[in-house]
Every structure is written in structure tokens, then in C-alpha cells.
């Protein structure tokens, strides 16, 4: 089975800190995605990548950046964390639309 691993299940950070959320997949998928999940809002796409060193903005990229230096790793960066970035962050990977996404277990980030 494809595995998508997010390095932290729970994180607590202070306002203004730079935060790195790491995601690694082990099945050579080209496509990787970062979503945030908030009650009543569902999943909202932050950034995605179809190849190494490639990135595209999703629906809510403000306050975030990403890095994809290797095919298996897709990092989400909060340049200066704010309390409104408190959320569940989900990473996903895919080898194509018809296969769907494989999700990681999520990182619940709290910014205080």
C-alpha cells in the first residue's frame, strides 16, 4: 500500500514562528497536495505539485509556501505563523485522477 507520512501528529507553535510541516510518500507519485481542514469548511487546497521543483497555488495560498526538492517529499512552510492558521493540515499524493488520493494522517497545528 502507498504510504503518506506526515512527520508530526500534533504541533503547538507561537505566533510569528516559522513552521515546517513535512510530508513523505513512498510510491513514486508525481502529484502531491497540501490541504487544510476546518469545521464546516471541508478541505481547502493550499498548494500542489506535479513534479520536483514545481509548485502551484491552490485556493488559499496566502501565508504559506512549499518546497519540493525531492519527488517523495513535499513540505509546507508557514513563514510567520498566525492564530488563524490553527487547523488540521492534510497531505495527499496521487499517481493520477482515476486512482484518487492517498492521505497522510494529518497534522493538527495550534498557533498560540
Amino acid at each position, binding site marked *: 500500500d502507498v504510504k*503518506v507520512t506526515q512527520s508530526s501528529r500534533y504541533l503547538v507553535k507561537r505566533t510569528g514562528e516559522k513552521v515546517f510541516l513535512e510530508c513523505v510518500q513512498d510510491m513514486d507519485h508525481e502529484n502531491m497536495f497540501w490541504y487544510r481542514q476546518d469545521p*464546516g469548511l471541508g478541505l481547502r487546497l493550499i498548494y*500542489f505539485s*506535479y513534479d520536483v521543483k514545481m509548485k502551484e497555488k491552490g485556493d488559499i495560498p496566502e501565508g504559506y509556501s512549499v518546497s519540493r526538492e525531492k519527488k517523495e517529499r513535499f513540505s509546507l512552510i508557514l513563514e510567520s505563523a498566525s492564530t488563524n492558521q490553527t487547523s488540521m493540515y*492534510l497531505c495527499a499524493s496521487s499517481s493520477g*485522477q482515476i486512482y*484518487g488520493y492517498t*492521505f497522510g494522517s494529518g497534522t493538527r497545528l495550534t498557533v498560540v
Partner: protein
Amino acid sequence: AQSVTQLDSQVPVFEEAPVELRCNYSSSVSVYLFWYVQYPNQGLQLLLKYLSGSTLVKGINGFEAEFNKSQTSFHLRKPSVHISDTAEYFCAVTAWNTGNQFYFGTGTSLTVIP
């Protein structure tokens, strides 16, 4: 552009009763449709998907869904629910013109009552 509407944010149901979770989509092109389940404090897992062919698709854990093109719906059903089905359920749509992006509904929280 594609969009998904899940009409019910919360669905309580007694154990062993049937359940239907509703999903409607909007798209100007042919779509692929998916249902995912999220158990507490976990990521999403694929339940089932419709790509083409038979409009009734069966998934894991006894769930099934029916694609209705005329009503642009993809409702999820289970004839008899268990306590372990308590979870959040998400409907998602993608199409050839979205790249590999999926568009998710806002989710339906299913609570099975003993």
C-alpha cells in the same frame, strides 16, 4: 469549474438502521466521483469511486453509491450501520480539465447511536 454540495452536515442514525448521505455535484464535463471516510484524528481513506460504466458502485465496509447523471448526484448508502461507521464522510469530484485536483464537499458527520 467543479463543485460539490453535501446537503447534510450531521446525520444521526440508530445502529442497524439504513443510512443515506447525500452528495450533489456541478460540472460542465464528465466527472469522476469519490467518497472518502475520515475516522477521528485520522486522514481520509477511500471508500469507493465512480469512473464510468455501472452507475452502482460498491466500496469497503458495506457501503455503496449510485451515480445519477440527470440529477447530478452521487449518494452514499449503507443498509445497516454499525457503531464503527461513526465518522466524517466526504464526497469529492474531479474531471479531465482539473488536472489532478479534486474538489471536496464540506463533509457529513455520521453518528451511529447504540
